[in-house]
């Protein structure tokens, strides 16, 4: 549990950090909360030559409203998200999701940006970010780039982020009236990562018909994804229990689920359906003004 030698930088500004990643490229790793990178380094599964600790860039830790959107700085911790009054009012899905991550110690150190940049296939935020149609802002020395959540997750531990870019913030569009969202998760008992996690956001129209719906699934495949087949089945229809169950069965359509000692592919598929249905039920109840 001793990492290989590395050179450590602790830039105080984003510009300084960007210069460092531009200079060191592939040989540099960004350190935020350290909850993914440090264990990998201690097991020597990762041995970066340079570690750029962006944890001191205070400007990246805010959670604010800006131009009708919620903007979450990359260095906001899971606890910041869980405890944010602004998010509880405007986007309760994120505090609900953050509360499911690890334990108190992890939530006090781990960051939104770190989790999304690392893109663990079983992390919790990706499901919520997908369901919220969020945007991920990547900054490099040549400017900023906005990546829609639906395009962001590419493969196992792989995102649209490019070398030299730093994930600086996440932007969440505000949801309208008659909307509700929920995150439901079956945790892996050892790590408490998601064996199957589903975030659902639903807007109800006249006659309780589903006007819009987004479902993000995590823990099941190599990367988090939107369950579009299930979404399409639901749009414009009345949220009847049978329909929800049938739609939930489709959340793994076209997906090749992961299998490991904790859960086989078949079980992940089944659990994803159950938890997607439960997330949808809760989201719909909340959209209708009920507690769930």
């Amino acid at each position, binding site marked *: 549990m001793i990492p290989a*030698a590395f050179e450590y930088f602790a830039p105080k500004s984003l510009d300084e950090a960007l210069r460092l990643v531009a200079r060191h490229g592939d040989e540099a790793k960004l350190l935020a909360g350290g909850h993914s990178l440090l264990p990998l380094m201690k097991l020597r599964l990762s041995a970066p030559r340079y570690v750029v600790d962006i944890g001191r860039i205070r400007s990246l830790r805010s959670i604010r409203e800006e131009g009708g959107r919620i903007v979450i700085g990359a260095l906001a911790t899971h606890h910041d998200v869980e405890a944010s009054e602004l998010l509880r009012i405007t986007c309760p899905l994120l505090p609900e999701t953050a509360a499911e991550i690890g334990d108190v110690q992890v939530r006090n150190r781990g960051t939104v940006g770190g989790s999304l940049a690392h893109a663990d296939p079983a992390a919790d935020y990706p499901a919520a970010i997908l369901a919220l149609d969020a945007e991920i802002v990547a900054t490099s020395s040549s400017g900023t780039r906005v990546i829609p959540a639906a395009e962001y997750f590419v493969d196992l531990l792989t995102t649209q982020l490019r070398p030299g870019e730093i994930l600086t913030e996440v932007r969440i569009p505000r949801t309208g009236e008659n909307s509700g969202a929920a995150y439901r998760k079956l945790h892996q008992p050892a*790590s408490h990562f998601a064996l199957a996690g589903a975030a659902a956001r639903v807007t109800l129209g006249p006659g309780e018909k589903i006007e819009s719906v987004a479902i993000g699934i995590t823990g099941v495949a190599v990367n988090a994804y939107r369950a579009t087949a299930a979404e399409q089945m639901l749009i414009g229809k009345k949220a009847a229990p049978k329909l929800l169950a049938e739609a939930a069965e489709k959340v793994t359509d076209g997906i090749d689920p992961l299998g490991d000692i904790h*859960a086989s592919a078949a079980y992940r598929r089944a659990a994803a359906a159950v938890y997607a249905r439960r997330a949808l039920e809760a989201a719909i109840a909340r959209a209708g003004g009920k507690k769930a």
Partner: protein
Amino acid sequence: MATAAKATKYVGKPIKRKEDPRLVQGIAHYVDDLKLVGMLHMGIVRSPYAHARIRSIDTTKARSAPGVVSIVTAEDVDGAIGPVPCGAMIPDMKPAPRPVLATGEARFVGEGVAAVVASDPYALQDAMELVEVDYEPLPVVVDPEKALRKDSPRVHDVHADNAAYRWELEGGDIKKAFKQADRVIKVHLTNQRLIPVAMEGRAVLAQYDRGDNRITLWSASQIPHILRTQIAAMLNFPEYGVYVIVPEVGGGFGSKLNVYSEEALACYLAMKIEKPVKWTEGRRENFLATIHGRDQIADMEFAVKRDGTVLGLRAHFIADLGAYFQLLTPLIPTLTGLMCVGPYKIPNVRAEITGVFTNKMSTDAYRGAGRPEATYFLERGMQAVATELKIDPAELRRKNFPKAKEFPYATATGLIYDSANYQGTLDLALKKSEYKKLRREQAAARKSKTGRLMGIGLGSYVEICALGPSSAMPSGGWESATVRIEPTGRVRVLTGSSPHGQGEETSFSQIAADLLGVTMDDVIIVHGDTSAVPYGIGTFGSRSLAVGGTAMYRAIEKLRDKLLKIAGLVLSEDPANLVLRNKQIVSKRDPKKSMSFADAVGAAYTAKALPPGVEPGLEATHFYEPTNFTFSFGTHIAVVDVDPETGDVKLRKYIAADDCGNVINPLLVEGQLQGGIVQSVGQAYFEEAVYDDQGQLLSGELADYAIPRASDLPWIETYNTVTPTPVNPLGAKGVGEAGTIGATPTLVNAVLDALAPLGVRNIDMPLKRERVWKAIREATAGPSGRPRRAK
């Protein structure tokens, strides 16, 4: 919690642990906290193969790495360090001694191949990666049943096969029992391999003083004296020159009841280099190379009458021993055999054990050590009997328990159970759980359309505590204590027991203070330092209080008698009329005749006026040899809800009714039970050492090996009855392992009870959600040609 009824100041009271202030403030010292001048760090290069020939080891690059001081392989230590000792002897057992470094072949993933010493842990880690080992992979066998087949690869090619030993035991007339039976009910069960996961891993610090020719070894151990003797033997070094010191130990659960190669290697290297050498285990090493527990497979046949009377039990156990013998590896499964009839009157029994070599880490004592296996198999069997015969499981148990007046009770396996009232703990558990109400709630749930699966599980147990009479133990089963009342009137207790979380400083102080009429603060309990305390056996097998505490009790009795004699002379009173109370020695007859405890102690040391034949000073030693084991017992009840969609088990209520004899400190007893039950939740629902077919440990770290968390648990309710043991003067039996012994089958029986209407009869532990889900699906959908129906 009910306790001993005697009027005492401390004994029986829920006194907070004396140990805790230093522990919670972080001012206590574990081995890894110790730093010596010039200290170097040792690391072990370990085999990545479960079975491989070691063609060559090239240490050239590693030797030239910065900070490297020494590297040794098997070749270097050949003849200098003997193999890891095994204290267990079973007739016709094939030996499997473990060399301190793999010699010729590596036989499990994690076996040490080279030891590297460097100036700091960072240089060490870098250098270890530079040791080049040329391995020739050999065929691997992981599954103990496959290992017994004729065509299996052999773990040790010096042996004809992988059957390490066969052990058998028979009592009564087993053939007749099966002839008389109305039904024979069979179960095939597994008790999976577990990793002990003590919070503190192993840690060793060795120092050599050439002038005195002395080795000082600090180690996180449960058995400092046995370790001293064995290290001296391994290194062929005079035992009087070996000093073992055990500072704070952060849990052991049996994993530190051993002698490990790293302990000998650190001593050897400290001698060779003449600098202190420290080794601190990483968590991955702890998973790979510290002993594992359980790993047994059982076939049990119960010969029963229609009314539920169990006439006989035939049992065959396969015990996976791993590749080598550690200290007690072959012995542990025999405890399963001895305890296989549990708390029931099963007059006819036949038990057989086949111990098997596999390419895995050794199994050895893990909390309960053989008894949790016996209890699990038996209680699952009793559940099957109850289900098959449609008898309430509580009534089935009651029917087969011996009555309280039948004790001492001789079992068909040859043990004498000292004292018990099994009906008492059963009734208490039923009452506290509101069992009948639970069954009504369950009946309603089963009728409702919600699909709610509620289960109620029972488990009864009896377990061997206070190990034990010397005739039954390889090391001897006694314990020692030296008690010194110092001239200022403070009491120093030197005990051969060596705790690793038991709270012995508290419970021993309670007993000593009450016996001498002083306060607990007047008493200090010294343990774990072999140069300070008399030779002792150690802490394991729920023995410290019952055996070590009794040794102290007897030593204090000697001092008490001496003090009273001295006081009798001063007070001109018959010592038989004197009592020790509130730091005074007072006559029961005439309260005016009194003197202070301090003055009496002073008189012993100044020695001006001692009664004839009384030596000066106040020191006494007692080596206590118990006449029998003691047998704690109880009944537990668990209530679960199973999610029919995911197989997720929600444990919502847990009631434990135990009897460990007289209770010295109810807080400590409750702590032991809570902890033990939680460990059982781990085995029942989460934990499993998963090896793939190439012998790689897939659940090799805490991110993949699930131990229970607070959020997985309900409040565990503990209750007790008190049936003192006649075996020792404390009347105390032992409680360190009761939780892990009683709870595991209870927790599994609850889930099976929930699924009983579906016709599910078995799910192997751990009851991971997927296994439960699969059982539900197969039972309800009936696919793949094996439909199951509710009976």
